[in-house]
């Protein structure tokens, strides 16, 4: 993975920079020695590593402002980081950049029960919000599988989804307001703590959400709270073929039901899981769907009936419906254990997250089978079928020379197939460095230039998380001057990294 050439001039100022930053955040909160910096070398993608110049842990929004201003004045890059669970390398450090970690900004600041809003700091782990309001019968809906660890700030930066986003939406749909600091240290309040607070001017909050830490550092977030559904029940549906399972996804939605979650697991995943949960799946089962329905008891009972009928009509060979919360948890455990179960089958695996129109599932899954043959690597499928969000798990062995490269190429081919099927490179993990060089497959030069112009409006010096998301660095000064019309390739001579 090629990154922008680190600036030796900046690296040579390391000690002076550390000293300056200590004056802002206190001496304990700037990490400069090797041993303590090492855990920050990578995020959730361990294949990409770099030693950050310094690690800084501010204790307040004001300190974030001061750190950014300090670095901006000196031309030092910043990489924001929450818990480092990103699966796209969004929080990958830069050797000439300061890693700004939000883990000390971890308080739920206020809960407004009657207006159903909570104000939280960016370093709060997602689950803590729901825990802080559960006694009120409320919760924060978006629930990425990483919710025990991943921070709300990281969720905002990646517009994280979750198992329940089919019905309840992704992070962007649950944010009412935020406080954000630009690279210059300027602090902005966007939106507020009520519906429509951000309206009447451009939706800057909307574009900040999912911007992967390239536009501003988010220092406070106002999130919507929702009542916890009264009941949830899950139906486990087995199919003799992958095609039938995929068709059932469209049929459920086509009949007018939006499940809370709709997940897919193929036979390979089931076999891996059955070892862990000591339960056998029917031999005929080629794919399993888990469909969760929630709401009031009466509503859910009605929906369980509708979905069961649809599944039978689509050729389901076996249906299991949870009747107690215990059963529900047990049925879900197979999905929850899927990734660690696969992890036991192979030394390493690599998982991407291209997203496609639901009716293209069979087509793209078939292509994957061909790719597996081409690269000689095994794979398994376990994904958010309801939103067409694929998570192919490509198995490889990092100790075998060339295996990682093959896995990456396999992953890239899957993503290209997703885009060609009318989908997108990333449903929830973001572009980061991982999918950066594929952006030109989804977007034209003009599309990308328009996006980079937005970056220039927020961060004209390109100091905030550079090298991520776009295959070329922003050249804000040039954008203003150069203008070539109608798809003529511009900047054809700019080096890609």
């Amino acid at each position, binding site marked *: 993975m090629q990154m922008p050439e680190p600036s030796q001039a900046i690296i040579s100022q390391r000690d002076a920079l550390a000293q300056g930053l200590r004056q802002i955040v206190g001496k304990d909160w700037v990490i400069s020695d090797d041993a303590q910096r090492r855990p920050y070398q990578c995020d959730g993608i361990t294949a990409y590593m770099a030693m950050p110049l310094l690690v800084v842990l501010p204790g307040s929004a004001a300190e974030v402002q001061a750190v950014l201003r300090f670095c901006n004045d000196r031309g030092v890059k910043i990489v924001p980081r929450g818990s480092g669970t990103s699966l796209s390398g969004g929080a990958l450090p830069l050797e000439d950049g300061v890693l700004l970690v939000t883990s000390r900004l971890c308080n739920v600041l206020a809960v407004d029960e009657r*207006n159903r809003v909570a104000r939280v700091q960016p370093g709060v782990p997602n689950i803590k919000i729901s825990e802080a309001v559960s006694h009120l*019968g409320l919760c924060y809906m978006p629930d990425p599988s990483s919710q025990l660890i991943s921070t709300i700030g990281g969720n905002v930066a990646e*517009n994280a989804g979750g198992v329940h986003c*089919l019905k309840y*939406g*992704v992070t962007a*749909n649950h944010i009412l307001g935020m406080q954000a600091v630009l690279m210059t240290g300027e*602090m*902005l*309040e*966007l939106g507020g703590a*009520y*519906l*429509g607070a951000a*309206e*009447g*001017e*451009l*939706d*800057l909050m*909307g*574009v900040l959400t999912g*911007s*992967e830490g390239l*536009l501003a550092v988010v220092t406070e977030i106002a999130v919507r709270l929702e*009542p916890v*559904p*009264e009941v949830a029940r899950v139906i486990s549906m087995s199919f003799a073929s992958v095609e039938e399972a995929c068709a059932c996804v*469209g049929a459920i939605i*086509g009949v*007018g039901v939006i499940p809370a979650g709709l997940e897919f697991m193929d036979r390979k995943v089931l076999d891996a899981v059955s070892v862990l949960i000591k339960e056998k799946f029917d031999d005929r089962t080629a794919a399993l769907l888990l469909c969760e329905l929630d*709401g*009031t008891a009466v*509503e859910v*009972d*009605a*929906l369980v009936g509708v979905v069961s009928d649809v599944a039978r009509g689509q050729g389901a060979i076996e249906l299991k419906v949870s009747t107690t919360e215990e059963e529900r948890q047990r049925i879900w455990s197979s999905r929850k254990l899927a990734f660690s179960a696969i992890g036991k089958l192979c030394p390493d695996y690599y998982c991407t997250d291209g997203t496609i129109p*639901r*009716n293209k599932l069979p087509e793209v899954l078939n292509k994957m089978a061909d790719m597996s043959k081409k690269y000689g690597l095994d794979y398994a499928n376990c994904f*958010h079928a309801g939103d*067409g969000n694929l998570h192919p798990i490509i198995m490889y062995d990092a100790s075998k020379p060339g295996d990682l490269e093959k896995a990456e190429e396999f992953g890239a081919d899957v993503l290209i197939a997703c885009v060609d099927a*009318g*989908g*997108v490179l*990333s*449903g*929830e993990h973001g*572009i980061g460095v991982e999918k950066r060089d594929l*952006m030109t497959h*989804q977007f034209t030069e*003009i*599309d990308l230039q*328009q996006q980079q*112009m*937005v970056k220039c*409006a*927020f961060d004209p010096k390109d100091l905030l998380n550079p090298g991520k998301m776009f295959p070329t660095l922003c050249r804000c000064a040039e954008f*203003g001057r150069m203008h070539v*019309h*109608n798809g003529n390739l511009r900047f054809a001579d700019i080096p890609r990294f």
Partner: protein
Amino acid sequence: MTDIQTTASMRPATTQDVADILMDAASKGEPLVVRGNGTRAGLGNPVAALRVLELGGLDQIDFYDPDDLVIRAGVGATLDNIEQVLAQKGQYLPFEPPRYAGLYGTDGARCTLGGAVSTALSGPRRILTGAVRDFVLGVEGVNGQGDVFKAGGRTMKNVTGYDISKLVTGANGTLAALTTLTIKVLPAPRAEVTLVLPAATLEEDVALFARIRALPLGVGGLARRVSPTGACEVLVRVEGTVPGVAGNQQVLGGLLATRGSMEVLEQQASQALWAGVRELDCLNARPDDLVWRVNLPATTMPAFVAQARKAGCINRFFVDWAGGVVFSTMRGVQPEVDTLRYRKMAEQAGARATLLRAPDAVRAQFGAFPPVSAGVAALAARTRTAFDPAGILNPGRMTVQA
């Protein structure tokens, strides 16, 4: 009734035509009024431009994929047309877009999808299903340099590049002339009923709304209005499956029993009622009234309304979104004075007051949209420049030039 003396209108039929027009205008630095069919031209500040770029001709439906809950259409497709196409498959636009045709004296049947997205007007169901911004999956448009760009996609989950779809939603045509929109749709609820009960004080009603919303009962409408017969009443819309609604209605019945007599409106009567709420019919705004929308935390609403009424800034009003929005009329007697006073009051209450309808001169002077902080204004201006460096797309529509 709005944009200053426009002399010529251009009505392109293709994206390429739009690009050609904008490239030409950009080269001359000529500002343009950008609109759909102009049915909501009265929203936002008047634009000083001589020519109109009208996008209503881009009215094709590119595809509609009910199993994938997505429709893609030209910005000129009418909301009526889209809603009819969706209804044939039992689906709908969840943000319940208002037309405000009564308000602006225009033809609601000509309201376009592009206008709905550009104005980001959301209906009463917002408290349950979300706002326009939550349903715009992808866009194609032409920026102020005549470049055709696309952003987003057609899948409901997408973190591939910046969410420019959100940025152009509610931008009132100031960033780009949008040409195509990809919209997430949902199955329409099978059943709906509305419970109508007598209003109490605003405080009590807001507390009631909060109690109702604390329960997961699929309540997609909580408003308080004066009925055509002059009764002050609270409206509770329950939606879902047939048995689900029946069950939830029962639960609510228990909760609301202390309020006295309750009327139940079934399916069609309920739909008709909420269409009226969506269109602000119950304001009975007279032609020379100013019409306001104030967004605020529901709990601060009663005190705000009381204060504004005492000050004569609110004449008639009704409350939607469980108390989170107040629509009101203001007598057009001394609009300059009252507009400033009302805005000030809203600001002090931490609220945002949008002038939905007012004479051109009032909107031109005070701005239809409430002011934002200097930092936000500057960043928004830089963002506009990133799309439209020459400032030719609806200049001044959202911001009042100092």
